[in-house]
């Protein structure tokens, strides 16, 4: 009963005289690509996140150094913009797909499952848009004083 979903089709079960339900072959297999994505993004994220943690929490004064000027100093360099855009997209989609897996495993009531999957999708899209806009429209010279601007080359010109 549980196997007999809409996309299923009867196929011979090898080694028996019976038939079993199998998924109808599809052109795009979401679960397969999600599985591949988790592993591919996972490897990249391990590098990106450990780099992120080292620069922000270990080097210099660690968490105490983080303020607007610190962020401005980093994002004045396109290298860190690209780093953080990659981090944002890879991590959010990786996390959202992980949460999707958990919801599919534990939320057995169809209505609840739909609501939770909808919330995950909504939060993910909203934060991807917000984060990307923040990273691509950031002005490192904002709020810079004479002495803080000296540390950022493109602000000193003003």
């Amino acid at each position, binding site marked *: *009963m*549980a*196997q007999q979903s809409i996309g299923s089709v009867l196929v011979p079960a090898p080694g028996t005289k019976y038939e079993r339900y199998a998924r109808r072959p599809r052109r795009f297999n979401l679960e397969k690509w999600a599985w591949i994505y988790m*592993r591919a993004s*996972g*490897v990249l*994220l*391990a590098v990106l*996140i*450990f780099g992120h*943690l080292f620069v922000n*929490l*270990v080097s210099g*004064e*660690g*968490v*105490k150094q*983080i*303020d*607007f*000027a610190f*962020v*401005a100093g980093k994002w004045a360099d396109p290298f860190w913009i690209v780093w953080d855009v990659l981090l*944002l997209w890879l*991590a*959010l989609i990786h*996390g*959202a797909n*992980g*949460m999707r897996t*958990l919801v599919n*495993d*534990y939320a057995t009531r169809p209505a609840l499952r739909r609501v939770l999957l909808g919330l995950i999708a909504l*939060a993910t899209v909203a*934060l991807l848009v*917000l*984060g990307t*806009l*923040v990273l691509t*429209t*950031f002005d490192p010279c*904002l*709020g810079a004083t004479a002495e803080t601007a000296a540390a950022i080359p493109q602000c000193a010109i003003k």
Partner: protein
Amino acid sequence: MPPRADRAPSAVSLIWGIVATQSTAAAPAQPKRMGGTLYRGREGMWSWVLHRITGVAIFFFLLVHVLDTALVKVSPEAYDAVIGAYKTPIMGLGEIALVAAIGFHALNGLRIILIDFWAKGAKYQKPLFWTVIVLWIVLLAGFVPRQLMHIFGGA
């Protein structure tokens, strides 16, 4: 609903798995029920449980972290005020928990990739788990003293 092999264990079967693991551990004379399985009992199951718990924790932090970072577009003052909360001793300890969760999730994720793609990965999944634990301890041994210095140290 009939039991299905492709379903993740429910809370009940998870607890049953824990009880079964413990009871076989207590009575070694009995035949091993869990032998030869990758995801039920012992290292295989516990790494899976920890991977899920740390994954959820990291996801919720990520949601908050994108929002707090977005405050740089509101004003430098707004960003500094909110990010100041991350520098208190309690949040400093929270950051240790966060790094611990990320460290385990990352290292165990690489272990999962080895199990999936390395021909001998499944065979060595248990030593790989303890390798993850050792590397995780090394990682934290590097980070924790440094972080404690930053949040409790002077200057």
